[in-house]
């Protein structure tokens, strides 16, 4: 077997997973928007506008989550079995709140919908709060580790009965959870500013931006600060895995391109936010902050998996930690999936085209009234 190639494909697939992760976090703006439903929408007409503009996009978030899972399964199946089987409760809660979301757009405004419109709005709010927080906490364990051990058949044994909820006992995880949560809300506000043409919603969104963008930046920097100054799990020369002081900081220094990506991403996010706050007529903040988010998340996940770092560390048995080398699919499968991945540009192209034609003009109350069907 050509080891060089296996190694290359493992890195290639980790990058794809990172990209999907980055896009997923960006698309969580749908959830962020749902959590702001009553903050920005003070009466039903406003809430209808919000739900209908988000409603054209929610399936992208949902689909990206599914594909993120599928891509992880195909390329790093050991992560799939270890994390989903191990941190069972966290993932189940995430899935549960996404089920709530999937039906709510379609059912909320329909006659005879059994639970009543208000319930579906509450479902959207639950998904809006829980999904970014839980996903953020789950991704934080890529850095902070989880209590598991792998058996001879690579079967997972979770060392606490709380099956993933133990992540809530680690303060650092909260930093990323809150950062993702406020990022989702910040992006949602920028999305409203671009896509909804309504005075009240515009004014409220710009005001709310302060209260969400500042905590987002603060929590993100806190998280970054903690992981850069703490331990990271590294694959040593003898292939054993151990905590190493300042591992992630060294990764920053040793992978300058990635560090550049992180800085460009952060700059994009800050530019999008600050310019929106300072010029009341400028509406394109989502494009800068959105692409900045994608880049920053990619860089963060590359930091977790590249440079002989364990991307899913075990805090109780470091040698059980998952790396892109020991968790990956076989060379053959990764190669097949490499060819499959060549379709990605086509997928991006048609999504881009459809997104453009569907969001050409910002939505107004009048447009919403005239459109049929609507959510």
């Amino acid at each position, binding site marked *: 077997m050509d080891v060089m190639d296996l190694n290359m494909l493992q890195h290639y697939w980790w990058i794809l997973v990172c990209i999907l992760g980055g896009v997923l976090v960006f698309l969580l703006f749908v959830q962020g928007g749902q959590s702001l439903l009553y903050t920005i929408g003070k009466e039903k007409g406003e809430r209808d506008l919000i739900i209908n503009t988000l409603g*054209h*996009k929610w*399936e992208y978030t*949902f*689909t990206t989550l*599914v*594909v993120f*899972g*599928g*891509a992880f*399964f*195909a390329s790093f*199946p*050991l992560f*799939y*079995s270890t994390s*989903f*089987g*191990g941190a*069972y*409760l966290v*993932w*189940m809660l995430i*899935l*549960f709140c*996404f*089920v*709530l979301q*999937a*039906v709510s757009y*379609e*059912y909320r405004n329909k*006659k*005879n*919908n*059994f*639970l009543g419109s208000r319930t579906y709005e509450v479902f959207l709010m639950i998904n809006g709060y829980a999904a970014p927080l839980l996903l953020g906490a789950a991704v934080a364990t890529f850095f902070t580790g989880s209590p598991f051990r792998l*058996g*001879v*058949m*690579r*079967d*997972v*044994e979770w060392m606490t*009965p709380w*099956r993933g909820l133990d992540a809530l006992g680690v303060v650092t995880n909260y930093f990323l959870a809150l950062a993702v949560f406020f990022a989702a809300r910040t992006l949602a506000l920028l999305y409203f500013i671009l896509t909804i043409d309504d005075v009240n919603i515009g004014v409220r969104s710009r005001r709310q931006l302060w209260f969400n963008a500042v905590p987002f930046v603060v929590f993100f920097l806190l998280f970054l600060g903690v992981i850069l100054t703490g331990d990271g799990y590294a694959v040593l020369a003898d292939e054993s895995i151990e905590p190493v002081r300042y591992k992630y900081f060294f990764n920053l220094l040793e992978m300058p391109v990635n560090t550049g990506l992180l800085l460009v991403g952060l700059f994009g996010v800050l530019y999008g936010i600050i310019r929106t706050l300072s010029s009341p007529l400028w509406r394109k903040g989502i494009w800068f902050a959105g692409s900045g988010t994608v880049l920053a998340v990619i860089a963060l996940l590359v930091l977790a998996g590249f440079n002989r770092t364990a991307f899913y560390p075990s805090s109780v048995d470091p040698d059980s930690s998952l790396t892109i080398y020991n968790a990956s*699919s*076989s060379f*053959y*499968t990764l190669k097949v*999936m490499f060819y*499959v991945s060549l379709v990605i540009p086509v*997928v991006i192209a*048609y*999504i881009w085209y*459809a997104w453009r*034609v*569907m969001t050409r003009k910002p939505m107004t109350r009048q447009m919403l009234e*005239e459109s049929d*069907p609507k959510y």
Partner: protein
Amino acid sequence: MILELTTTSLVEWSRWQFAMTAIYHYMFVPLTLGLSFLLAMMETLWYRTGKVEWLHAAKFWMKLFAVNFAIGIATGLILEFQFGSNWSNYSWFVGDIFGAPLAIEGLFAFFLEATFFAVMFFGWERVSRRFHLLSTWMVFIGSNISALWILVANAWMQNPVGMEFNPLTARNEMVDFWAVLFSPTAMSKFFHTVTSAYTLSACFVIGVSGWFILKRRHLEFCRKSILLASVFGFCSILATMFTGDLSARDITRTQPMKLAAMEGLNEGGKGVDLTLIGLTVTDPALPSDRMYRVKYGIALPNMLSFLGYHDFDAYIPGVQDILNGYVSSDGTEYPSVEQRMANGRMAIAALKDYRKAVDEGDDAVAAQALQLLRTHFQDFGYGYLSSPEEVIPPIPLVFYSFRIMVGLGFLFLLLFVVAGWYAKKRKFACFRLIPYLAIVCVPLAYVASQCGWIVAEVGRQPWVVQHLMPTQVAITRIASGWVVTTFWMFAVLFTLLLIAELGIMFAQIRKGVKGAE
């Protein structure tokens, strides 16, 4: 043992959870697969002829489609992640093969569906007619591609091909992608499933139209919808029967125990009859209470042999023959289950020895253990069984489900012929029985679909991966209380959402067709 056998209650709850999710999921999927085709056809007819009735029809069915679509997606998400969350040993053991189709499904199908669904549903005023039509077709193509890949994955579990076991990583690894994709099991399963879904969709359209006819509403709309759906349904049910036959022939070779359970066949032989109907009864004379005999059966002589091998005299093994060991019609010799269990235990022990020898650097022992493992790997899963009877699936459930599915298939064939004639001749004033029949066939189509899955999935027990991994070792080791908790969480939620879905559907139907007389 390398993988521990877990407690019965955990296995049972994990199975219930997966079965419950799958059953709910498959209440929504078939309509998506087939109705999307009818939508696209109606829109095409409008685009080509300019007849606005087709546009109204397309828009009406599209609204029902959307209500159904959302909940199909929701249940599908849970299914995908359950492989990891509840079946994590399985996910590692075969993830190298099984993960690929799921990822391809996401990449090729889900984005297509999601993107063009939004355009199809909201894009009437935003995009050109041409692009809108293209989008509707894309929704059909996307949903059917998605069915292809998930069924390729499912078929692989029933008939694992194109892979090799890697003892170092303790998993099966893919060696031939095309063998996985084009395995005869995958192909017959895909075509059988989608054509049966088209049949269900045709029943749905005819049934809803039947209700309008009874209410004397939208008669012209009903006529058009029924004509289109009955032609579509007629072709689909014939294709379903044909692919069902292919599927049965495949099962005869790859899963003889499933076939024996479908037929309630305890002692096989040459020239075996095909049971049409009958009762499965236990018999104290039989060695196990998992074994059954068929009583009061009506059978077609030698037909099972013919269906299996296109030879009236072919040998078909029964449950007892499979337990004892037999020689199949194509000359392959299968040892007794007892023997296969011994082989399996040897394979498991050899794997352990191999890993130990590799760790200790003992090449000679490693080579010997590997040789032993390779020889017996085909019986690997039998090593986890504790008694031979465990290879017998629940026979009555499979036997009756199979008969209900096939019987209903013939009823639908009749429906399509009668309904097509009825609409063509505009017999709406008389023959009230026909619209009633059409309405009754809607729930029956769902029953037939679920029965089909019961035959496929219960019939293959105890295997998650045929011969290689029994269900009880595939699961995640977790306190069963958590699985019980999440089972009820999802069961309650799905039930509430199903009630909501039906309520909205009925309200939408009652509202009638906008624009139609």
